């Protein structure tokens, strides 16, 4: 029994590490968010957010951009994942890899390459470029989880539906699509959340003309307005909390698989 307790104790160093490097920092965000200028509890940071149209507008605009990006990623990514799941296994593996490889090029280099592409085709930088860049950066995160779910789907269900006289359209709408929703949900998590929190990418793609919420947070922190920056981070955390409420824990595995 003594030995048993020793193995268990191996979790202790990491528990302490997590406490200092994860739990305390997260608490600090909350503490700073509710701290007034003179120290002490206060809601002034949140009042400022509501009363200052600029930050609130950026916030709403960012959610809009993130929604559009997510929808485009679903529309483009779902068919791709579906086609991939129908390919033979070894070819599908290669194509999935092809989708993932661009991820190894530094995000900022990729973004600058997108800027170059727009220059090359003499398209203007701005909202269009921003959305293209976001979709370009996050599309693989949509394709992969959907592909994973579709590929593991029990084919006898599809055959059963066909045997029972469903048309191909019905098979897709009534069987395949509903069964693939966990993949879509984790895809949404993996596209929507990073999109809403990006900074830098937006600056580069719009020549600093369009600001997203992430940029606003970064600017405030950089300018020494930690309390306000922390409050904005706290608001982002709440949005993320709400988003993840829509996804129950059963999708966590899918999300993790997608990440790894």
């Amino acid at each position: 029994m003594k030995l048993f307790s020793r193995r268990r104790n191996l979790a202790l160093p990491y528990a302490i590490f997590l406490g200092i490097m994860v739990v305390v920092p997260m608490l600090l965000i909350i503490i700073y968010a509710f701290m007034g200028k003179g120290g002490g509890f206060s809601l002034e940071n949140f009042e400022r957010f509501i009363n200052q149209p600029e930050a609130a507008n950026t916030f709403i605009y960012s959610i809009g951009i993130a929604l559009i990006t997510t929808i485009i990623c679903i529309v483009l990514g779902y068919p791709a994942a579906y086609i991939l799941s129908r390919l033979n296994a070894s070819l599908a593996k290669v194509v999935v890899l092809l989708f993932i490889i661009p991820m190894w090029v530094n995000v900022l280099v990729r973004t600058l390459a997108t800027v170059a592409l727009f220059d090359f085709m003499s398209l203007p930088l701005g909202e269009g470029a921003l959305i293209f860049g976001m979709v370009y950066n996050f599309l693989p995160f949509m394709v992969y989880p959907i592909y994973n779910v579709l590929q593991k789907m029990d084919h006898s269900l599809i055959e059963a539906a066909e045997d029972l006289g469903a048309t191909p359209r019905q098979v897709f709408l009534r069987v395949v699509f509903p069964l693939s929703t966990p993949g879509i949900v984790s895809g949404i998590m993996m596209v929507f959340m990073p999109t809403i929190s990006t900074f830098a990418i937006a600056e580069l793609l719009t020549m600093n003309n369009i600001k997203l919420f992430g940029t606003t947070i970064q600017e405030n922190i950089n300018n020494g307005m930690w309390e306000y920056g922390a409050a904005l981070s706290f608001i982002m955390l709440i949005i993320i909390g709400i988003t993840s409420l829509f996804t129950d824990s059963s999708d966590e595995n899918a999300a993790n698989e997608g990440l790894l």
Partner: protein
Amino acid sequence: MMKKFFSASYLVLLLVMLYAPILIIAIYSFTESKVLGNWTGFSTELYSSLFTGGVNNSLIDAIKNTFIIAFVAATVSTLLGTIAAIGINDLKYRKKRVMNFVNNIPILNPDIITGISLFLLFVSLGITQGYTTVILAHIAFCTPYVVLSVMPRLMQMNPNIYEAALDLGATPYQAMRRVIIPEIRPGMISGFILAFTLSIDDFAVTIFTNGTDGLQTLSTYIYADARKGGLTPELRALSTIILVVVLVLLVVVNYRSYRQAKLAEEQQQQLKLKK
């Protein structure tokens, strides 16, 4: 037939879209022009200046920093994460749940939140930010991934093996080194690789923890560069090299696993024949 053609061309079209920007970088890495998109004749100058130190020192420093930080962070994360996974796997009920929950926080948090939270920690403790804080921050967001990649291996393991080793007179340390570690090694290796790539790619956490002393990694260097109005031309060569290395590694790894799978299949068939 038509359907197949359409679906194949759809995939090709998407891949072309994904690769177009990268291809442009690769192509323009073979010309000297300062601006991307301006072809001034074929040249390998960018590659040679990258290796002969013709580039300004700060880029070379940034590359060095990136790799040192990634190597240290990945090594520490792998050790810490493996030991932690062994411990967590042995925890019961609530403690295990709490550890797994906290372990998931850095994974689910957006980078910017992780970065800001650590920035506030270092500022509150009055720690000067620099090399140490960046490495600590990288360890913080890499270790959870190591834990996640080691854990499945531990759960697959037969728990009796460890106890059998103890019964046969092994010390706990020996049992760990001779029994557990060999079983979970693949998880440790993939955890290390994952941590290494996450660290190299990181931008958001680094920029909040690198302080004001001018410590730059590749990502923050590129960011500063881009804000000044352009990409150092040598970065095109560097990105191309990274891409080629990754491609080669992936081909090698996949070819090996393909061959191993084939070997296993053949062995099984031989076994069947013998029976």
